[in-house]
């Protein structure tokens, strides 16, 4: 009996190792994407193969929370990386590492890519804030860029995009397209950013159709396609005929397609997933900011700070508007877009009333970024209360 169990133990160990290797394949494989990023100072051969006289390219690393194939958040970031490559050509070399969890692993990955000679490192999720701060304090000659956070350091700055502008423009379309006057939003996690998007979506809809109501269902996760489907289905059952979501997959759009309702793409252009249901996609273009950030380092004028880019800077757009949307509604979206671009149109301008009937923004008052960053209430027209609100 002993030989059997010994042999079987070895087998089991081999099996587990194989499984672990396969599970990690996603992570490991991506590091190959940095062939050009390999030339260490001690590797003259590869440096020579580029061009003997040329300066070393600036090495830039992107660390992603999800897989680049998610068709949403991470996909959008990777499109930004590609835009950087296109803009700067062989003056830079980019690498990315995907599926890095918001844990101690992140710190290890930051240190690892820095030790490979990357002088500019982007981190694409809120949860990288603390690990990135820690690494930034140790590696003063590396510049760090952190998406959606609020802490900065001498060599670490933050960037974000005004996704609520996209939500507002989607709302304009939704308000014009709804027949039941009930809109539905599948919310991810009730934080100010997401609540702001729900409110802006509703304000946009009310700007063309004062009768609309928005129902909200929270799944308390960023990514869970079956749950997103269930949430979307329950909104449709409750009478919503135009859906929006702040989650990461295209499940809500697919559910609307199956039920013959309308929905929007989020973060990336999702038109292809649901040709009938898709009304438009509120997308984030990280390209312009990434190009600016890399340019800052190349020109030696990088300074710490915080950026929050929107339609004005080309970071937010509403794209692939469906042919089902009537021309006059499209014209309204274009007018809003043009206004946001030249600064003449302000979304968060009073009077704005909260769902409890109290005025949250007085007439003609314009919300500043601090106000926008702390939104924890629903505006009038959104049903229910923000989870946890008294």
């Amino acid at each position, binding site marked *: 009996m002993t030989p059997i169990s010994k042999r079987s133990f070895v087998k089991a160990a081999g*099996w587990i190792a194989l499984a672990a290797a396969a599970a990690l394949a996603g992570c490991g494989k991506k590091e190959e994407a940095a062939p050009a990023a390999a030339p260490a100072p001690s590797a003259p051969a590869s440096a020579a193969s580029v061009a003997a006289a040329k300066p070393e390219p600036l090495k830039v690393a992107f660390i992603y929370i999800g897989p680049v*194939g998610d068709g949403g958040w991470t996909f959008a970031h990777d499109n930004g990386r590609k835009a950087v490559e296109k803009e700067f050509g062989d003056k830079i070399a980019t690498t990315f590492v995907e599926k890095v969890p918001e844990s101690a692993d992140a710190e290890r990955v930051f240190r690892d890519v820095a030790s490979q000679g990357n002088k500019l490192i982007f981190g694409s999720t809120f949860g990288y804030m603390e690990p990135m701060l820690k690494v930034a304090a140790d590696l003063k000659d590396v510049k760090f860029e952190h998406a959606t956070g609020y802490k900065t350091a001498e060599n670490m700055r933050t960037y974000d995009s005004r996704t609520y502008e996209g939500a507002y423009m989607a709302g304009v379309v939704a308000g014009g397209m709804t027949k039941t006057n009930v809109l539905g939003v599948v919310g991810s996690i009730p934080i100010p950013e997401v609540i702001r998007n729900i409110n802006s979506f509703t304000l946009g809809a009310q700007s063309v159709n004062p009768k609309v109501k928005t129902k909200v269902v929270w799944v308390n996760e960023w990514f869970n*396609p079956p749950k997103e489907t269930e949430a979307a289905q329950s909104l449709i059952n409750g009478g919503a005929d135009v859906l929006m979501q702040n989650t990461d997959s295209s499940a809500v759009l*697919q559910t609307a397609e199956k039920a013959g309702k309308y929905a929007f793409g989020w973060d990336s252009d999702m038109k292809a997933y649901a040709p009938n249901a898709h009304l438009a996609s509120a997308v984030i273009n990280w390209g312009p900011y990434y190009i600016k950030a890399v340019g800052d380092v190349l020109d030696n004028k990088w300074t710490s700070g915080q950026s929050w880019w929107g339609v004005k800077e080309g970071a937010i757009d509403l794209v692939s508007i469906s042919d089902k949307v009537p021309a006059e509604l499209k014209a309204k979206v274009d007018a809003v877009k043009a206004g946001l671009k030249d600064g003449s149109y302000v979304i968060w301008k009073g009077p704005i009333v909260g769902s409890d009937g109290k005025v949250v923004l007085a007439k003609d008052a314009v919300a500043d970024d601090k106000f926008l960053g702390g939104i924890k209430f629903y505006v009038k027209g959104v049903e229910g209360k923000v989870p946890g609100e008294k």
Partner: protein
Amino acid sequence: MESLALLLAATLNAGTLLALAALGLLINERAGIVNLGAEGMMLVAAVAGFATAFHTGSDWMAFAAGACAGALMAAAFGALVIWFNTNQYATGLALSLFGAGFSAFVGIGYAPEKLSERVRFQIPWLTDIPFLGPALFRQHPMVYLTVALTVALTWFLYRSRAGLVLRAVGESPESAHALGYPVRRIRMAAVMAGGALCGVAGAYVSVIYTPLWVEGMVAGKGWIALALTTFATWRPIRVLLGAYLFGGVTMLQFHLQGEGVQLPSQFLTMLPYLATIVVLVLISRNEGFIRANMPASIGKPFFPGS
């Protein structure tokens, strides 16, 4: 009334997905094998099913592909735990991790794809009955097949000779062996049948429930099915009812949120788990009943001739 009917319909849909996987795991466990790899098998089957539906346009081919993928994964697991006597729990966990990574890897090319237009099913005549029509008779055929499967499985386990042998193998493999039954082969067949059903459940996720492929999309349903099997004390009808209960409370909490009910959504999200555990623990709190239904040799390796 209308919304209640729709809630019922959504419940059946959500419950079917869990019931399929949980019934598969029940067959395994009745033969004495615990396979913690359900999540991994479902993921691999989900990508196999999606790819098949994408290329052939047929849901039934997709279910077949999902079943094959699940059975193959289960066969690898079965070979290790039954013939090489590896630890069932460790090997199952490895299968789960492997399935997650492997499905992500082979599925890369399918993430940006979409399936052709989905057909909406309804049973003629019955679908026009007020309330019952929209609630019960506009489901995918797999929903009805799952009910039939549950009944068939109950008959098989408690009324057929083969079912008796299967249970005997799970209760006391030594006795079954002494009577001349090929314990290992029977266990292997049970494991593969269980894998095939988990595979059908996986294909149901990616082809019917949420028609798309994205890595990790099963998102924990496999683990819920595993827990469900145990809480339902390995009885097929209870597994089905438990699955409907879980699906129903899940849909109900979303429904309540949409209606603006004043409860924190985090609490509501927890509700399906809580409700299912409480109900199933209550109905099976009789210790004798649990002992009577729990396969006595579950999780234990079997060495013929020892």
